[in-house]
């Protein structure tokens, strides 16, 4: 869809973006808090849950959910992610467009009100968060961490990250750690909440047909009363791995998980991004990639095997599900595909296919306000907002030599193997 994006600086470290388009059936408002990823991660990760659990006007989950239902099934967003060595807390509401309301009421205006109410008017007892809500949200956050331990694909990836970034902030889990979460008191959490309001870079994004000026006024009202002290961080880019770290664990699962972490040789997030992105796609990003067509299809070494680039840290992960006895074969085959790219063993058609695939992904961003919000807000850390189209042009101009060079810059840093020691065949009754 045709859309228009604007961005303005509200005050130091506070930005407002507006995405408008004709015809969207939904609208959304998100408030993104960018914080340095560090030892406060567990505290910060707990705040979104507590804020969306209750407020002064809506004292419990039932009241909030009832309000959302009356707003035609509006949805709350409370997401925590890692962007480079930043922890980003995203709180938002998305709803259907006002034209669908039964009685001409403004759904979007009420949704923005609700979002600001939840973030800035929390329910308090003796000046801090309600103890009951904090305890309950601590449990929920710990169970989210536990679920990642139960999901072996996620677990293996998390372990690889922990090992690979032992000395770097990036090794910290976006949700923090169970030990710290369990120790958090309502008083300490309220302090963390105040830190977030004071220290975070705050990016508000209004998408769809929502009254932008009203949101801007509300932001002014709430942020105006906060004494701000902006804290930012620079993500460390380690260009080369010194040697390969290997770790193996064993669990009673059927399928083994092999995760390999690589350094891409980037000095910052923009360092030859386009060529590297295409190289990763050729290597293991799409169904025509080498990992898919050769390691999975031709050699039948795994059920899934793919590579993903993390631009904001200059790294790449290969994740695969294999029979544990195939570990050595699979590792060798995966590394061989990278060698092949270094040696120029790929066709111009392969490159073209990657460019087309990326073009497809980037272009379709414009089809929903939620996707546009995600696209632009993922860039709020740097504040250097690019359009999907900007990258498409860059992809088209990448040469063979640049791709070969990008592959030559890659070094293997860490291998984590989760060996499955359960018997094959049917599950026990």
């Amino acid at each position, binding site marked *: *869809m*045709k859309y228009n994006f604007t961005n303005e600086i509200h005050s130091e470290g506070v930005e407002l973006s507006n995405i408008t388009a004709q015809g*969207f*059936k*939904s609208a959304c408002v998100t408030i993104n808090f960018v914080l340095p990823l560090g030892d406060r991660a567990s505290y910060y990760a707990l705040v979104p849950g507590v804020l969306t659990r209750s407020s002064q006007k809506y004292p*419990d*989950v*039932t009241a909030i*959910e*009832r309000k*959302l*239902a*009356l*707003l*035609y*099934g509006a949805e709350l967003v409370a997401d925590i992610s890692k962007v480079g060595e930043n922890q980003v807390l995203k709180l938002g509401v998305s*709803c*259907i467009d006002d034209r*669908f309301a*039964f009685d001409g009421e403004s759904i979007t205006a009420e949704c923005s009100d609700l979002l600001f109410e939840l973030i800035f008017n929390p329910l308090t007892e003796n000046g801090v968060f309600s103890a009951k809500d904090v305890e*309950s949200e601590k*449990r*929920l956050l710990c*169970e*989210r961490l*536990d*679920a990642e331990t*139960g*999901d*072996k694909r996620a677990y293996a990836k998390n372990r690889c990250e922990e090992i690979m970034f032992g000395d770097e902030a990036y090794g910290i889990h976006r949700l923090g750690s169970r030990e710290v979460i369990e120790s958090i008191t309502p008083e300490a959490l309220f302090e963390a909440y105040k830190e977030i309001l004071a220290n975070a870079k705050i990016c508000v994004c209004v998408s769809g047909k929502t009254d932008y000026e009203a949101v801007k006024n509300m932001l002014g009202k709430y942020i105006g009363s906060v004494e701000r002290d902006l804290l930012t961080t620079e993500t460390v880019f380690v260009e080369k791995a010194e040697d390969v770290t290997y770790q193996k664990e064993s*669990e*009673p*699962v*059927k*399928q083994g998980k092999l995760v390999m972490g690589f350094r891409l040789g980037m000095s910052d997030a923009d360092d030859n991004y386009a060529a590297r992105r295409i190289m990763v796609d050729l290597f293991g990003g*799409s*169904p*025509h990639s080498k990992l898919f*067509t050769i390691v*999975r299809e031709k050699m*039948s070494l*795994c*059920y899934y095997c793919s590579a993903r680039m993390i631009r904001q840290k200059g790294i790449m992960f290969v994740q695969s*599900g294999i029979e544990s006895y195939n570990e050595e074969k699979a590792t060798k085959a995966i590394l061989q595909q990278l060698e092949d790219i270094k040696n120029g063993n790929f066709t111009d*058609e*392969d490159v073209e*296919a990657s460019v*087309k*695939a990326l*073009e*497809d992904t980037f*272009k*379709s961003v*414009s*089809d*929903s306000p939620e996707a546009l919000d995600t696209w632009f807000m993922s860039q709020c850390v740097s504040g250097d907002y690019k359009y999907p189209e900007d990258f498409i042009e860059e992809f088209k101009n990448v040469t063979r030599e640049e791709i070969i060079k990008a592959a030559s810059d890659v070094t293997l840093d860490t291998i984590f193997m989760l060996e*499955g020691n359960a018997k094959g*065949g049917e*599950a026990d*009754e």
Partner: protein
Amino acid sequence: MSENVINYIENSILEEGYYSIKHKSGLQIYVYPKSDYASAYAVFGTKYGSIDTRFKRSDRENFTEIPAGTAHFLEHKLFESEELDAFQRYAKTGASANAYTSFDRTCYLFTCTGNFKANFEILLDFVRHPYFTEETVQKEQGIIGQEIDMYKDSPEWECLFNLLDAMYINHPVKIDIAGTKDSIAEITAEMLFSCYDTFYNLSNMALAVAGNTTVDEVLEVADRLLEADEYVTVERTFLEEPSHIVKDYVEENLPVVTPVFALGFKETHSTPERTLEEEVAMSVILDILAGQMSPLYKELLDDGLVNNTFSTEYFHGHNYAAPLFSGESVNPREVADRIKKAAKELKSTLITEEQFETVRKKQYGKTVRAFSDVDTVANALVVSHFVDEELFSEFEVIKNLKLDFVNEILLKSFDEETAALSVVCGK
């Protein structure tokens, strides 16, 4: 040769609509244009899923019984051809392609932001031209074996299928969609051709396209590539399913920290499929009983018994139906007891007008929202076709739904005698 018959169906709330085309080849085609979108999404589906294991073509004498997992196996194999496989062909034209097999259908799809016609040609071509040999079938047995193993490690997947196995005595819904390593070992190339011949007849299929394309583009390709099949129908047969369950509790050990559970209430109906009215009514009931604004949800949350993964679903298809409650809990039995208790209470107080109107608003909003995504729209067109419903009728159903009808359904539901609980927990 007959001509294409084209109808336009419009919805006044959304102010948009779609073309329903009875194509001269015998295929039902739907085109939902969204000219302001960057992407287009196409899905070509057959009404053939994992539960279709006993069937015959209307022009054949005898019923055939096939091994579990054949529909899914065939899906994997159709991507191959003698030369380039479908993925390689799509890579040249620039589309992101996939396929899925569910209990009652197999669908092939792609999404793209350019080159629609070229991509669409590939879709129609490979689905219409099966190619496999004994050798390629054998190779696939290895790949799918891995897939089956992977699902065996998934606590949620295992929990669901253990529940179905506890609830159903004969119905094939209880068997993993991909089958078992033993069942897929029985699959041969000949068997796949015979299934293809039966289920991939155009009269048993549907094609839907949504997004940045036009009827003319779609029909230009369809007219050129689709040759009429001889008209046949598929007869399916199922072993009779008793109304009772196998067992009320099943447990499996997997390395999870918080146990995963699923509670289901097996229903028996006199007709094989649930109507859209029944489906919407049940989702209203489930939302009021256990949705996030229900007193039950708050109580379970406050008492540390569920987390944000708690959800409800009306699980139903041909000859099976069961409201399901699933999630993670340190004490699944206690959760199950509380759900049963809350259902009993709701049956005695009944749903109030106020609760009903609140949830109706929510349902309406969700329905409007669903029409934003080209993939949701295209898949919904295929699904509605297979159950003989019109895509927009959900709006009418929500608007005209009566509280009395919802309460009537409530009173017939949640029979504790047919409830089963499945738990996956650590050792």
